[in-house]
């Protein structure tokens, strides 16, 4: 219990940021029209690809002789890149289609 409380204390700024971000996330998309549900989902999907930064940090901090971390980290970089690149390109293609329909 004490450890959890100390985790809370050490990270109080992050916890503050988390709470504000939760409300911001809700606020920012609350007026989305139904036609944009799927592109928005896809765009959000691309944004959580930010997890790739974690995989890069693993690779930067891994000891060059620690093959377990290097191999898994390499895999994580590929997975994260797929999420980012695929996510943004797919969203862009979806929205391209919207533009044509509107004309």
């Amino acid at each position, binding site marked *: 219990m004490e450890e*959890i409380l*100390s*985790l809370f204390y050490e*990270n109080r700024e*992050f916890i503050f*940021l*988390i709470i504000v*971000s*939760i409300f*911001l*996330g809700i606020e*920012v*998309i609350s*007026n*989305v029209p*139904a036609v*944009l*549900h799927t592109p*928005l*989902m*896809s765009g*959000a*999907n*691309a*944004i*959580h*690809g*930010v*997890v*790739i*930064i*974690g*995989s*890069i940090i*693993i*690779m*930067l901090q891994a000891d*060059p002789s620690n093959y377990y971390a*290097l191999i*898994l*980290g390499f*895999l994580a*970089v*590929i*997975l*994260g*890149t*797929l*999420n*980012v*690149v*695929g*996510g943004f*390109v*797919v*969203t*862009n*293609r979806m929205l391209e289609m*919207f533009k044509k329909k*509107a004309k």
Partner: protein
Amino acid sequence: MNTTILGLSILELSYIVASVTFILGLKMLSSPDKARKGNLIAGYGMGLAIAATILFKEEFSADKWLNYSLILAGLVVGTVIGMRMAIKVKMTAMPQMVSFFNGMGGACAGVISLVEFDHLRHGGEISAGMLIVILLGLIIGSVSFSGSMIAYGKLEEKIADKALPAGQIINIGLLVAIFGLAGYLAFSGHLSMPLMYTLLILSLLYGVLFVMPIGGADMPVVISLLNSFTGMAAAFGGFLYGNQAMLTGGILVGSAGTILTVLMCTAMNRSLTNVIIGSFGGGGAASTKSG
């Protein structure tokens, strides 16, 4: 000394810029005429955050040439495959593609937790709080990965809807096992890799059983839900590394994704509980439950 401080300042500044582009991007994605621009802006922000991390997170040292080459190789491989898949996919197959890429992000978060857990075992500083963050990242990331893959398979019509008898009881049992095991790992101080892999397998299994009985027509709602799961997993990673870009990006998607899931349900005249527990709908098992 000065160069490191300069580098770290540029790094933190990039993370702030990236966080702003994520917020702006999401905002613009929810209005029809700005949506495309919003997606591009968020994309640039992401590129900036990635580049700054590689360049400034650690001071470059020549012994780590292998690490740097693997990062670049991973980026190239991921970009080539991701581009090919995203460009080739038919317009009608977009939702399953989103699900597929979502699964990749979930898997990425899971793998990060596996590596960090191993790192803790080899002399890293152990605190129950950080362990919980790592374990939650693994659980949510893996559930999101296997769930998304099943959703992908269903929309591709490679997997049929199947409900296990007493599926709900099995699922609840699995959840109890997952959190029991995670609690043991977090508080016993016994950092066992086999137990960590057991947790991974149980979480993957839960993702499969969670999505399996849900009907095809409800899939977009489930994908959106899993999307917000991956957002949360990314945010746990951000918490672990004290990384603002990961934290804001992940939480934004986590909360916006959850609201979006609810909005999608409302648009379909359904309630979220109905979609998850009722498991009736397009081609699924008929049910008499109603909201």
